[in-house]
C-alpha cells in the first residue's frame, strides 16, 4: 500500500500543477462515491473532518514550533502581512477560524485598541486548549473568547463581526464553498475577509527546490520534532491539492464576497487573499 501511494503521489503532482482544476461542483458530481481529497488520497466525504482532526490532535502541543521550523520563521511575516491588510482598529470584533493556538488573535489584540475583541473558533479542542492556556499565561482573558466549531457551520450570528480571518486553515475544510458562504454570513456589511493559505503553484523558478523541500525535508523534520511524519505528509499533499489563486478568487466571488485582492508571498509559496462583504 505505501509503495502504491508513492507512485500515486508523483503522478498526481504533475497533474495537479499543470492539469485541470481539482475543486468545485463539477468534480463533486462526477465522483460516483462522493469522495473528497485528503492529501493525495481520496476519502469518503464524511471521513475527512475526523481525519484532519486526528492530524492536528497529534501535533497540537508543538504546532507553532513546527510552523517556525517548517517555514524558517517566515510564517510570522506572512501573518503580519495579513494583519497589515486587516488594519485592526477601534471596537472591531474579529472571528479567527481554525486559529486554535491563538497566534492570529494575539497579534490582532496586540495591534488593536483596548475595545477590540477576538473570538477564536477551531474544530479541534486540543488546539483550542493550547491557545486558551496561552491566553491565561498572558493574562488576556476578557478580550478573547474560545470555542470549538466547524467552519462549515459556524455557531456565530448573521452579520455579527467586522472581520473574519483564516490562516492556513481553509485547506483542511471539507467543503470550501460552504465555509466561504458561512464567512460571508457572519460578516457585517463592510466586513473584511482575509485568508492566508499555501499556494499550490509557486513561481516556476522555485518549484524544483520547493518540491524537494516539501516532499523530502518537511516530513522528516516533522518526525524529528513531533515524532510523527504522517501529519506532515498530509499537510504537504493537501497544499498541492488546494485551488490555484485564480480558482480560489472565483470561489470567493461565488460565495458573494467582493473586491477580491491577492498578494503572493515568498514567490507564491503562500497567498494572502482579501475580500469584502459589501
Amino acid at each position, binding site marked *: 500500500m505505501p509503495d502504491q501511494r508513492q507512485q500515486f503521489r508523483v503522478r498526481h503532482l504533475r497533474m495537479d500543477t499543470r492539469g485541470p482544476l481539482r475543486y468545485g461542483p463539477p468534480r463533486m458530481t462526477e465522483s460516483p462515491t462522493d469522495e473528497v481529497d485528503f492529501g493525495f488520497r481520496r476519502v469518503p466525504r464524511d471521513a475527512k473532518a475526523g481525519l484532519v482532526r486526528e492530524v492536528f490532535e497529534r501535533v497540537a502541543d508543538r504546532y507553532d514550533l513546527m510552523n517556525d521550523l517548517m517555514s524558517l520563521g517566515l510564517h510570522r511575516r506572512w501573518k503580519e502581512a495579513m494583519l497589515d491588510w486587516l488594519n485592526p482598529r477601534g471596537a472591531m470584533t474579529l472571528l479567527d477560524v481554525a486559529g486554535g493556538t491563538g497566534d492570529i488573535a494575539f497579534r490582532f489584540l496586540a495591534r488593536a485598541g483596548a475595545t477590540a475583541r477576538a473570538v477564536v473558533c477551531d474544530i479541534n479542542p486540543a488546539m483550542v486548549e493550547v491557545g486558551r492556556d496561552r491566553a491565561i499565561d498572558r493574562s488576556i482573558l476578557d478580550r478573547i473568547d474560545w470555542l*470549538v466549531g466547524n467552519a462549515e457551520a459556524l*455557531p456565530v450570528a448573521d452579520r455579527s463581526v467586522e472581520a473574519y480571518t483564516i490562516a492556513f486553515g481553509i485547506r483542511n475544510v471539507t467543503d470550501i464553498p460552504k465555509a466561504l458562504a458561512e464567512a460571508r454570513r457572519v460578516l457585517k456589511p463592510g466586513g473584511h475577509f482575509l485568508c492566508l493559505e499555501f499556494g499550490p503553484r509557486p513561481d516556476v523558478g522555485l518549484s524544483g527546490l520547493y518540491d524537494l523541500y516539501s516532499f523530502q525535508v518537511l516530513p522528516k523534520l516533522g518526525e524529528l520534532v513531533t515524532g510523527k511524519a504522517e501529519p506532515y505528509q498530509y499537510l504537504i499533499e493537501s497544499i498541492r491539492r488546494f485551488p490555484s489563486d485564480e480558482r480560489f478568487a472565483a470561489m470567493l466571488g461565488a460565495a458573494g464576497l467582493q473586491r477580491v485582492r491577492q498578494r503572493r508571498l515568498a514567490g507564491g509559496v503562500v497567498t494572502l487573499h482579501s475580500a469584502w462583504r459589501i
Partner: protein
Amino acid sequence: MGMAMADQPAWQSVDPKLLEILVCPVTHETLSYDRERQELVAVKARLAYPIRDGIPIMLREEARHLDEPAPPAGT
C-alpha cells in the same frame, strides 16, 4: 447539583459578550446558558451544547439531544 460549579474559576464561565453572537450552528437561534449543567441550550433545535473546561463545544455531533438524559453535573 450545582455544588460542583460553585467554586469554578472565573474563566470557566461563559463570557456574556460571547453569548451575544453565539448561536446554534444548526438553526442559528440564540442560546440560553445553563450554568449548572455547563451547557448552551438551543430550544428549537432541541440540542444542548456542552461547555468543557470553559470552552463551548459547538458541534452538532457533540451536542446532547434534549430528550436524552442530562449528564451528571460537574462532568
